[in-house]
């Protein structure tokens, strides 16, 4: 670890919801008094949607952050990339952190900067890479630099896989464990990503889950997926309710970790807020059934 990180606000988080733009205005207008919100609810937003100079969207987020814990989840730091996100991007993320004081801050284990005829293309997805020692060293350097620049601890999300690119020198759980140990970062375990990856690569999801280093796990995501049209793949689409298989995996992981912030993600085919809150209550009930280890 290169610098001194302040851990994010010490708040005990239960079940949370990925807050998307159509629901943001509704919540901001309620000014903390929305009738359907369960007590203790926290929200996670995609940081890039709010890394702007000003305006009503940013103001709405700040209003929500006054009433609810906010987690910032990024898709732009390219933490496993040979080329990181531009410094200006990190500076904008830091400013957003200063504005909303997030309780959690996370991004993905992925590279994202593609060179297209000399122009950068930012791919907001988990682009895969061989888990080599060289890749680990580069990722450790990227995460450490980013945490230093942000002054905050990052949680790193495990990717979803659609094929094995090969050439690995270590399994993913070992890569993540070494990364967390070397940088002081934590892990955001997306259980849906584990489910999708296991299906697509012909692996055992429960076994993959059981290998993850419990002490580093700072947050858990659940989300929906769908089958790909025309191939046997499952797509990490976030456009459907969480399946029973994914809830079961989440329960399995929680049994090892004890209570952890558990977030429902839904990015497409958005139902009304009340429907999502009903799904959040499933997660809350799961957490209530978990005893602290």
């Amino acid at each position, binding site marked *: 670890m290169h610098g001194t990180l302040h851990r994010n606000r010490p708040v005990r988080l239960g079940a949370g919801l990925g807050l998307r733009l159509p629901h943001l205005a509704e919540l901001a207008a309620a000014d903390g008094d929305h009738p359907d919100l369960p007590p203790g609810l926290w929200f996670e937003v995609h940081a890039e949607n709010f890394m702007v100079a000003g305006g009503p969207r940013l103001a709405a987020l700040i209003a929500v952050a006054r009433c609810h814990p906010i987690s910032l989840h990024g898709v732009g730091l390219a933490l496993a990339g040979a080329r990181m996100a531009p410094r200006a991007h990190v500076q904008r993320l830091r400013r957003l952190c200063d504005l909303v004081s997030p309780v959690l801050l996370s991004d993905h284990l992925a590279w994202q900067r593609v060179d297209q005829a000399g122009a950068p293309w930012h791919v907001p997805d988990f682009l895969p890479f061989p888990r080599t020692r*060289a890749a680990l060293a580069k990722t450790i350097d990227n995460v450490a630099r980013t945490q230093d620049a942000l002054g905050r601890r990052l949680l790193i999300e495990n990717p979803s896989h659609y094929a094995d690119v090969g050439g690995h020198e270590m399994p993913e759980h070992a890569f993540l464990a070494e990364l967390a140990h070397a940088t002081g970062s934590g892990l955001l375990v997306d259980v849906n990503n584990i489910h999708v990856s296991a299906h697509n690569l012909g692996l055992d999801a429960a076994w993959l889950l059981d290998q993850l280093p419990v002490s580093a796990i700072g947050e858990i995501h659940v989300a929906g997926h769908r089958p790909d049209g025309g191939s046997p793949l499952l797509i990490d689409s976030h456009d459907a309710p969480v399946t029973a298989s994914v809830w079961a995996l989440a329960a399995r992981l929680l049994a090892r970790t004890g209570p952890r912030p558990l977030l429902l993600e839904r990015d497409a085919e958005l139902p009304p807020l009340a429907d999502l809150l009903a799904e959040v209550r499933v997660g809350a009930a799961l957490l209530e059934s978990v005893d602290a280890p």
Partner: protein
Amino acid sequence: MRPESPAGLLRSPARFEAWFARLLLGEAVAAAPALRRAVAVHANTALAAACDALASNFPVLCRMLGEEAFAALALRHAMADPPADPRLCLYGRHLACSLASASELATWPWLADIARVEWLVVEALFAADPPTRRRRLTAGRSWPLTPATGWLLSDWPIASLWQAHQPGATWPDDVPRHGELALITRGDGGVVVSALPPGALPLLEALRQRMPLASLDAAMLRHLPALAGAGALVPAFGDA
């Protein structure tokens, strides 16, 4: 071509990324079918995100063209000029250029300017908030424009067309047949596009250059109330 193992040959992250990028960009690179399927998923995810962002950032254009035609335009633009910035809410600055070069849309020459207006709307939506403290005006100082203020002079009635394509708007009885100076401002109710007389353009340019109020001529100053009323100027008081 014999499928090659990328990891066997490309040990450095940078070299692997360069190899994978060629796959992602559709170049003729040998790869196993399973990897090709995976690359197709990643490419589709990235392009869909870019196209969704364009549809979100250019709703008027989308309504004018229809969803199918807009989706085709968005895909072509995303492939030619993909987002470089992770902030997709700010993607589409150059969409007007793609429109201008789309031969099938040549009979709708106002579309490129509509795209430019919508880009100014995007910029206005996310611009810095104006100072909350009122500024004292004097003749020797300029009256600053708010950070959200933008404008576009067009040969087409772009402000009227933008207004007519807002949700719930009714088509006006008489769409102007002349060009318009569109003023883009942001108020409490969101971003507004309004039409100004073309004669207001020199005033807008002078204020952008921070020219002192005393240096503005009467022809310019008579447009000042319209700008203030539209919220284009930072709050101020004084005797200028």
